[in-house]
């Protein structure tokens, strides 16, 4: 689905996200010395950000690929995603996960 935003708006998003991402990455590298320790509450909260965020990016794409809940073996992305999850679990490799997931999707679409 091509974006409705014009090129200049996309550049604005890129610039804003670039500045904010740099600020987040630089936060403690610059502050260290002034703030010697990260507040413990912030540290434990940040610890759970990756699992929550990555899951939020994965689950809807598998469970509701077209916006409606589709929990059945007829949902090829859910089946392919489950196989890719097994590959990710046992190999912890991005490349293997992509190959298993895409391969399974193609087999389900074009062969089965």
């Amino acid at each position, binding site marked *: 689905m*091509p974006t409705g935003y014009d090129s200049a708006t996309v550049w604005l998003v890129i610039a804003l996200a670039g500045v904010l991402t*740099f600020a*987040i990455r630089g936060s403690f590298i610059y502050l*260290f010395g002034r703030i010697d320790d990260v507040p413990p509450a912030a540290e434990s909260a940040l610890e*759970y950000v990756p699992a929550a965020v*990555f899951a*939020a990016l994965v689950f809807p794409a598998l469970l509701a690929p077209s916006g409606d809940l589709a929990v059945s073996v007829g949902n090829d992305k859910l089946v392919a*995603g489950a196989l890719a999850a097994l590959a990710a679990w046992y190999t912890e*490799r991005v490349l293997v996960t992509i190959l298993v997931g*895409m391969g399974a999707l193609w087999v389900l679409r074009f062969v089965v």
Partner: protein
Amino acid sequence: MPTVSSDLLDGVRAAGPLQLGIAPFGLVAGVAAVEQGLSVAHALGFSSLVFAGASQLAMIELLGADAPLAIVVGTAVVINLRTMMYSASIAPYFRDLTARSKALASYLLTDQAYAVSIARYGRDGETDRFAYYVGAGASLWLVWQVTTVAGALLGSGLPPEWGFDFAAPLVFLALLVPTLKDRASGASCLVGGLVATGVVVAGVPFHLDIIVAAVVGVLAGLGVESLGGDA
């Protein structure tokens, strides 16, 4: 006596195996940009100015769905919050650097550069830490730029029925699995993922799924941790 260049090369070598994960991820980010109607220059702009793969992919998808710009940028911030944790963890090693070197170190702070460097710093006090870090970070940077451009150039020629858009969630899946270390992170994953799905299925406007799921998912992790679920 270690020299600057040998530590730099050590960093490049240490990042080598991780390039196998970066390269397909970069290709996917490039393909996704073109599929959502962005140009090759936009793809390179994302890769060079933002240089954070997961947030790039999420922003590209949100732009394709014409989500409000505040949500596009806010989602990127939430996804990249994890690098604040890396920043805090690696900061003591960089405290004596010049402001310019700190800026370069901040710009290059990815999951992979962090993981490779912090492992080495823990083992070996003799390393020129900044050189090693730049070796790892800059080589990852280079592969990321080259593969996103390659993906963007390739992207416009891919047939839609092959479903290459599915590669994006697969990349996130590969990033998700190693974060599941204990019950608390498992709870963050399950709750975050289900809340995001619920928000999407319920048709909540403005594509708030990632932001809401991150907040609720983190709270779930903290809740389980406080119940002693870590043990």
